[in-house]
């Protein structure tokens, strides 16, 4: 597959997934029918494109623009590492897991500079909160993803999917998927972990953003959620493997399952305090992730 082909594939996947996520989130937020929810992404985007530009009196102009661009680029590059249809299709990379892991931790930088950019106090606090969060869950997140590479003896996501041909890793490594989903929601600052965008900060990092800036940021975050779900289904739910249906359809179905699951949790669980979150990441998630590594390693021998 050419680089251009991969670009088209990633764009289509992320846009489609983002649409589903925004609709699901809208349905979860309480008011409104399915009909309005289905039209919501298009109407909302149209409005944001019409909104006049705003800025603050002394912003860091470049950093503020780089925030959404970097977030989008990281979401997109993370999606490249996941084979969609089969072992060789979709530009499978030798060390795809390393690329993915690196991209997801750099999300911290994108969110931080987006909060720093406007030179306004509420977004800035949001940016620093993101730092506290990612530093707390970065290790457990990387660990549970890496654990799937142990039985596969490879860091290529295609090989990890192939290694699940007899049994999915969600069963072999029961701790993996739950920890992955919790940490993934935190890295995408979603659901109960949307601290950088909390209502207690009037929107936090987006409090000063409007129009196209807000639209690109929202799209990039939704794309990030899709990338995280895409990787989650590949390493835990057997990716493109499945009976009857073609591989790419299985990938899409499993990705949507994880996306909807995260959307459900997003508006039904209360936002965690940042200090409780830091404690939770280090004292609960990290030891559990280590148990996952060593028990799975023992079983793989």
């Amino acid at each position, binding site marked *: 597959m050419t680089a251009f082909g991969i670009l088209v594939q990633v764009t289509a996947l992320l846009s489609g997934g983002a649409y589903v996520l925004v609709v699901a989130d809208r349905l*979860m*937020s*309480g*008011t*409104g*029918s399915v009909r*309005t929810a289905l*039209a*919501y992404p*298009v*109407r*909302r985007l*149209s*409005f944001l*494109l*019409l*909104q*006049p530009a*705003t800025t603050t*009196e*002394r912003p860091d102009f470049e950093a503020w623009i780089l925030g959404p661009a970097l977030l989008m680029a990281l979401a997109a590059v993370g999606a490249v590492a996941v084979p969609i249809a089969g072992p060789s299709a979709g530009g499978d990379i030798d060390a795809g897991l390393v690329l993915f892991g690196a991209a997801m931790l750099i999300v911290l930088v994108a969110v931080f500079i987006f909060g720093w950019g406007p030179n306004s*106090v509420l977004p800035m*606090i949001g940016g*620093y*909160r993101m730092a506290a969060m990612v530093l707390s869950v970065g290790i457990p997140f990387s660990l549970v993803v890496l654990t799937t590479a142990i039985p596969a003896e490879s860091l290529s996501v295609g090989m990890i999917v192939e290694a699940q041909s007899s049994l999915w890793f969600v069963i072999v490594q029961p701790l993996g998927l739950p920890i992955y989903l919790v940490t993934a929601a935190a890295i995408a600052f979603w659901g*109960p972990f*949307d*601290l950088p965008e*909390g*209502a*207690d*900060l*009037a*929107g936090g990092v*987006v*409090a*000063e*953003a*409007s*129009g196209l800036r*807000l639209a690109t940021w929202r799209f990039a975050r939704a794309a990030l959620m899709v990338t995280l779900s895409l990787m989650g289904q590949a390493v835990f739910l057997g990716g493109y493997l499945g009976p009857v249906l073609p591989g790419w359809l299985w990938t899409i179905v499993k990705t949507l399952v994880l996306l909807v699951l995260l959307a459900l949790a997003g*508006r*039904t*669980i*209360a*936002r*965690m*305090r*940042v*200090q*409780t979150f830091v404690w939770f990441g280090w004292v609960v998630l990290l030891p559990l992730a280590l148990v996952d590594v060593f028990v799975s390693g023992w079983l793989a021998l």
Partner: protein
Amino acid sequence: MGLRARLAHLAKTGDVPVFVVVGGGYRSAVHRLRLVEGISIVASPRHASVLLIAGALTNDATGTVSHVHDQMAGPRVTVAWGHPEPSVIPVQTTVNGDVTEVATTIRRLFHDVLSGAVAPEQPLLPDVDAVEWRGVGPYGHGGAGMTGGTPYGRPLALRAPARDNLELDQLPVTVGPWFTGFPPGLALRISLQGDVAQAVEVAPTNLIQAGPAGLFTRALSEPTPIRDLEMARARHHIEWMADTLEIAGVDRLAVRADRIAGMISPGEVDPVERLVKAVRRSLLRLMTLRNVGVLPGEIDLAGLGPVVRATGVADDRRREEQAYRDLGFEPVTHSGGDAWARFSQRAAEAVQALDLAGRAGDTRAFGNGEVEAPDGLHRMGEPDPANRLVSILETVLIGSEWGDLVTTIQSLDIDMETVSVGTPAP
């Protein structure tokens, strides 16, 4: 049809982002507005297209409301709802009807401003730099001192010792009066070191003009049916729960609470009890409220209603009313004195109030100068409990992380309508 017109056509059927400035007597009404499909109440004016001024404000509010107006991303339109003429800032339309009428008006203006039938409002404040540019480089660097010069006129944060004896930057910020994390009208000058409040000062404000005297105020001078009082109490507490849930990010349950508040009836405790169960499942206690905003023992909380009862003290004026005693009334209490105790306390009081309302018949109570209102004991001729709650903020909030600070203020249920602090800012 050009691209602009096409986008406008799509956008005008979507949600209207509204920033609400809530004045006297309209807190409850805004809760009902939140339930209207297609109206989305936003937390930052940068996301809003419509500015809604609901309820009465004093003339001192002109400055802050104008700032919010100019900060709106637009295309801007302003609507006044139950806001007396002349309004604090120029408005497109004044509505005095119910929630349906204001929602229709907002939607119509949104249509018109997007399609170009109504011109978007221009900024109100003069285009003058309040602070002069004195820096050297593009970011004000290059002058004297470590960061050099005074970038864009505004000074850089001050240095001050932290609680751990480090000499670090301390940033004084005034947040409010229209910051949605705080009760409308409350502005705090907070000295932030990192995300922790080192010092808190209530900014002088007197922005909200009290609405018409409520049921509990009337009950000071005339005996009032217990059924009405308890229904009002239940509604007040459920709406407060909706606010808490909204700030905690559980939008779905916040909407549900608002819906319940609009259709409660005497004796029907079921919907509220089910809501409380759902709140438990949302992990609100574990995630957000537990051990937050614990009130220090040396603060005198007597007469502060649910706030004092959440520390385990059965302080309730209703015990001394014969009519309540005949109903077998016993105050509910919770222990702990943290934000979760106050949440459980108000939830339990809402249920109890509905139960009392169902059994009260036509009996009346109070009328002798003292009333147990939802926020505590009101006495004829004395300041409301809200004044005391505001005065304890300065001690209670010190050392709180930002999120805990907002949670604590919200958990105290402060209504700024009858509070005035010092001389208003110019």
